[in-house]
């Protein structure tokens, strides 16, 4: 056997008192796809950043094809053929897709040939199975497309060692398939890949082997062929967890959210929908089908036509505070740009919703937030060094728990959730489902956008499917993933089922 494509040995990384990685060693062979799983904050992203060169470990080294890499810049790693798609997209928003793909590589003699840049971009996009205009401005792309552009960028660098840090967390099913296509293609080209995900089925589908981390410690590496979902979960969480969540429907109450003739700016369709107290309504669909637009226009973030009522009270467009006063809450899709003040403390971020509900003159003390923070820790397993740590130092999943938890604590009439469990580990996810369920039983209505079909199926009383800006199907009762996907893609006739 030749030397492994990538090997980490004795890697340790601490932040102040936090041990992100204790003593991590593992190797990935050429052509291997290695899964990396672990709870939120277990050190997966840190390991990836050590590989990509963004984080310099306290101890240990990284070897590529047997060669030790100098601790150092991400760019040196890229030129050495090591690329990582980070958990948080790193793109220049105001530039075109093509330019982002060419970033750091543009030009010879310091000159840019636009023809070549755009042409290369088109080729790379094709390899990535992406139907994107190279000249599109990144700021105008959806989250999903942005992640895929990042994937394409790694392809453009022709990397031999590639990491994907929760890339699928923000992708819809069809995009996940495209990504897997790309990964399989890379496997045949002999690339070593590391794939991080909280979705065990994905791991089992695409990975050859899987390494489990817990609290920065190596737990085990197993062959996916010789393991099962349940076994992996038990390794991961340290106890057995029911992989399939199933919610007992709560008795539906009066209509708490009603939209009539709703047309978010930029969408083609006009939409009618209702959410009742105690009801969890899901919205599925492909990327760009307009799911987020529905939530955002209901909440008042996007201009819209049509009417929205909360508990019988009409809402005016463009007034999130009025919406909140009427009883709405929103967990936005992108926690970094729209959910959190990244450089501020856990406490400040967790309390933001409470501040919004206060009068500006109201007195606040740090101890007012103790209850909320204790709840986040106890019920959502929030893992943060301390309450005054900047949220940027938290792992992605823990950041998400803050965005979600502060609304659960506020207890609105209707909670609008846009990919609420994105990046959250299996154990905590089950806890969140349980909290949503409890809240529903207490009379809260939930409107949930999710790209995870099991989540839609397990959690929702009713599932709406969007396609190209229109509501095209509605499912209640038992439904399979295949049916949902068919409706979303428009392959079959829309299956209009009613109870």
């Amino acid at each position, binding site marked *: 056997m030749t030397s492994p494509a990538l090997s980490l040995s004795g890697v340790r990384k601490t932040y102040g*008192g936090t041990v992100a990685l204790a003593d991590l060693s593992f190797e990935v062979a050429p052509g291997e796809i290695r899964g990396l799983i672990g709870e939120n904050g277990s050190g997966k992203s840190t390991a990836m950043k050590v590989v990509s060169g963004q984080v310099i470990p306290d101890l240990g080294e990284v070897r590529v094809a047997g060669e030790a890499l100098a601790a150092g810049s991400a760019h040196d790693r890229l030129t050495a053929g090591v690329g990582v798609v980070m958990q948080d997209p790193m793109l220049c928003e105001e530039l075109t897709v093509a330019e982002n793909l060419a970033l750091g590589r543009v030009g010879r003699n310091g000159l840019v040939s636009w023809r070549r840049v755009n042409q290369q971009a088109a080729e790379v996009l094709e390899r990535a199975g992406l139907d994107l205009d190279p000249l599109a401005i990144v700021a105008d792309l959806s989250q999903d497309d942005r992640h895929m552009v990042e994937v394409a960028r790694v392809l453009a660098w022709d990397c031999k060692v590639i990491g994907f840090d929760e890339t699928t967390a923000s992708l819809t099913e069809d995009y996940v398939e495209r990504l897997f296509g790309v990964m399989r293609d890379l496997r045949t080209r002999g690339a070593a890949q590391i794939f991080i995900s909280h979705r065990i089925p994905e791991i089992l589908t695409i990975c050859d082997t899987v390494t489990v981390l817990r609290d920065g410690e190596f737990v085990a590496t197993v062959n996916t062929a010789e393991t099962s979902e349940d076994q992996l979960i038990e390794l991961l969480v340290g106890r057995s967890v029911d992989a399939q969540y199933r919610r007992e429907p709560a008795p539906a109450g009066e209509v708490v959210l009603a939209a009539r003739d709703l047309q978010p700016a930029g969408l083609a369709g006009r939409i009618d929908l209702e959410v009742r107290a105690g009801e969890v309504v899901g919205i599925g669909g492909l990327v760009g089908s307009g799911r987020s637009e529905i939530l955002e226009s209901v909440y008042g973030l996007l201009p819209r036509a049509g009417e929205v009522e909360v508990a019988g009270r009409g809402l005016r467009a463009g007034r999130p*505070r009025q919406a909140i006063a009427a009883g709405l809450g929103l967990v*936005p899709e992108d926690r970094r740009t729209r959910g959190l003040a990244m*450089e501020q403390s856990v406490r400040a971020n967790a*309390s*933001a*919703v409470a501040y*919004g509900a206060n009068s500006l003159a109201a007195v606040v003390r740090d101890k007012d937030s103790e209850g909320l923070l204790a709840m986040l820790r106890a019920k959502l397993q929030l893992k943060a060094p301390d309450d005054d740590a900047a949220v940027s130092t938290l792992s992605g999943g823990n950041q998400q728990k803050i965005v979600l938890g502060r609304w659960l*604590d506020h*207890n609105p009439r209707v909670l609008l959730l846009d990919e609420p469990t994105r990046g959250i580990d299996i154990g905590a996810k089950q806890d969140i489902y349980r909290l949503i369920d409890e809240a529903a039983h207490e009379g809260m209505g939930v409107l949930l956008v999710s790209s995870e079909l099991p989540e839609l199926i397990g959690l929702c009383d009713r599932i709406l499917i969007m396609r190209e800006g229109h509501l095209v199907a509605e499912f209640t009762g038992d439904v399979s993933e295949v049916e949902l996907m068919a409706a979303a893609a428009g392959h079959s006739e829309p299956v209009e089922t009613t109870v």
Partner: protein
Amino acid sequence: MTSLLTPTGSAPKSAPGPARAANAVEMLRKAPPWTGIAVLVVAMFVYMSATNEFFLTYANLNNVMRGAVVPLLLAIGTTYVITIGMIDLSLASLMALNTVILLGFMEAGLPVPLAVLAVIVASAVLGGLGNGLFIAKFQMSFMVVTLGTMSVFKAIAQLRTDGNSVQLYDREGFDFVVWLGDGSVGPISVPVALALILLVGSMLLMKYTTLGRSLLAIGGNPEAARIAGIPVERVQMAAFALNGIFVGIAGVVMAGRIQAASPTIGAGMELEVIAAVLLGGSSFMGGKSTFVGTFIGVLFVSLLANVLNLMEVQMFWQGMVTGLVLIVAVGIDRMRSRGRT
């Protein structure tokens, strides 16, 4: 609506916390952003006390403090604005205009204390509406808007007095303004006491009111704040109105200090004030500000000027030293927190 979620008793321990291996390097890194400047202030203090017989006298230190009042008041206002990630270039013009407004209200026959109050209100309105409205409601660039109002405020003041400053010392009741601007109670200077009380008040406001927390939240990420239900536009306007209040008070103090209304007083102070606030460690990017730092920053600048004067440094060298020290001061802080990210 009470929360469904009551925290359970068995909350996990709050992480490893301030690591027991709290070595000096780490402590230094965690020190507040104004530590470097504070050290320089102390150093200047010690050096001057040892080498200059006049420095450590009540009269001199009182002069330093009295002279620092107006910049401090302006810097407090700026700290509010910088908290939301903006700056106000019109503040010096507005302060000058305020002295003229005071003249106007007095000439209109308002009793002086009422005129003083009216000036502060007017300044809050001009700051909050004049700047805040355009910036918050119409989402115009704060740089352009405050550069524009910088001209406009100055022009209004000049038009009112034909560009002249008008002496006020002999106006009826003006004693009160002089008392505010330069009076003393026993050995304690009134404006110094006033400014320090307002400084502490601002610290409390920032720490213990929803408004203060909202200012920080908006500075951190306005979009996230909006989604969390914080009334972003109103808070932004409040920041400019608060700034206006402090510029108004500064105007009154300045009028009392120079015993005149002057449409051009303080011209050019805006950059000096902003520098002091940044020196203190507030972030130009918003979301991170410190009133203690602002105080130390202003103190630093005032003390430096005093030291250079006492050492009889020639004017051009004063400019040189001031510029260099500014750079060195932030350089120290940068070095200290190196590798912080």
